[in-house]
């Protein structure tokens, strides 16, 4: 396959069967390998679509500055696209972010502004909103509320999966910004009557939920629960166990959020077996495991790995 540039090669990832984890020939699991995108995660799709949308609407012009509260995959994807397009990127991240994250973003040319560690992700969003107000010419893409995030999946992830798996009965993905599930879910529901759309939501350690007040809570503006059939909360123990099973049984080295997605997908598979129904279950592998090696997720016992993850946003 030949492309004009790296950004043009985003998407069209492989969908591979999981013969050893699938319970029977009638109930099969299929993994969409999003770590095969240029920067190694599904976020390349959203980054590309949000930038293209900003250009289409005239918000992004040559030399523009893009602002986003992220130290994760979205920041890395945006940094890659911004470098190619010649935009300046400012990422807001909590000051206690890992050194690997900082180096990856800086390597792609992103500038980093720090938010107080104590406020976690909510505080990074608040600092980014303040920076946006102080710099009216900067463009905050805001992945939690930008329809282009979901649109990327409506136009690419959804059609790709349906083309490769016309008999699809279930789609399972992680719930963060909700972009993957909203976009892919909407497309598949329009084309596959009766399809089951399942969200796997990572359940972190208690420290992550340390709000001062319930009213400080946050629900992404993109989230529309009517797209989903059900939503499961998956804790670190199950996510780690499934992440390890995926590499041990099928040879797929994935990040920890993928373990949570696999856990929910296997739950759907067990139910189909119990009910004697045929199922073709597509699940998302959101990224590879490389960036999580330093968390200790892949070494030692499950108990040790779980303890190491306490207090971290692992997805």
């Amino acid at each position, binding site marked *: 396959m030949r492309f004009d540039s790296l950004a043009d090669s985003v998407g069209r990832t492989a969908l591979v069967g999981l013969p050893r984890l699938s319970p029977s020939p009638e109930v099969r699991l299929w993994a969409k390998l999003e770590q095969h995108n240029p920067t190694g995660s599904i976020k390349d799709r959203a980054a590309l679509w949000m930038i293209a949308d900003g250009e289409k609407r005239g918000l992004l012009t040559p030399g523009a500055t893009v602002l986003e509260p992220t130290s994760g995959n979205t920041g890395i994807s945006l940094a890659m696209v911004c470098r190619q397009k010649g935009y300046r990127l400012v990422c807001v991240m909590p000051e206690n972010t890992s050194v690997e994250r900082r180096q990856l973003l800086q390597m792609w040319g992103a500038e980093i502004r720090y938010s107080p560690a104590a406020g976690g*992700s909510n505080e990074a969003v608040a600092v980014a909103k303040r920076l946006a107000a102080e710099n009216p010419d900067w463009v905050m893409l805001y992945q939690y509320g930008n329809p282009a995030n979901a649109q990327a999946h409506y136009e690419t992830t959804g059609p790709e999966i349906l083309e490769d798996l016309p008999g699809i009965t279930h789609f399972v993905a992680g719930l963060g910004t909700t972009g993957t599930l909203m976009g892919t879910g909407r497309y598949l529901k329009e084309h596959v009557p009766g399809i089951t759309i399942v969200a796997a939501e990572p359940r972190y350690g208690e420290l992550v939920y340390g709000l001062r007040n319930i009213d400080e809570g*946050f629900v992404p503006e993109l989230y529309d629960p009517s797209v*989903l059939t059900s*939503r499961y*909360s998956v804790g670190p123990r199950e996510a780690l166990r499934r992440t390890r099973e995926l590499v041990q049984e099928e040879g797929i080295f994935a990040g920890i959020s993928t373990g949570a997605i696999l856990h929910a997908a296997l739950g759907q598979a067990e139910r189909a077996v119990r009910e004697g129904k045929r199922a073709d279950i597509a699940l998302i592998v959101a990224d590879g495991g490389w960036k999580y090696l330093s968390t200790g997720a892949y070494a030692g016992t499950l108990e040790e790995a779980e303890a190491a993850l306490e207090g*971290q*946003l692992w997805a």
Partner: protein
Amino acid sequence: MAVQVRVPTILRTYTGGAKLVEGTGDTLAALFLDLDARYSGLRGRLVTGDDGAELHRFVNIYINDEDVRFLGGLDAKLAQGDEVTILPAVAGGALDTPIPSRAADRRRN
């Protein structure tokens, strides 16, 4: 119909600091009324509306790890031995940043 209820840190002021409490009820709504009899004020943080007919927008509740909003909301059925988890809705997914540990807080103070 006894069920176990996991209470998040932010709501433990209502449960005397308890992380895990027990309650009874055939539905989630009934469970909340039962809990409120012993942990006064807790229900008021979980439901909104004139007669508490809706779940609070920033509260997520799970029965055996499944979001109750897809199980009938406050009418969701409970069975003996179910595990109910209450969590505040927070931003996740995009920021994989370690949240400051208690040890780090102690060093700062």
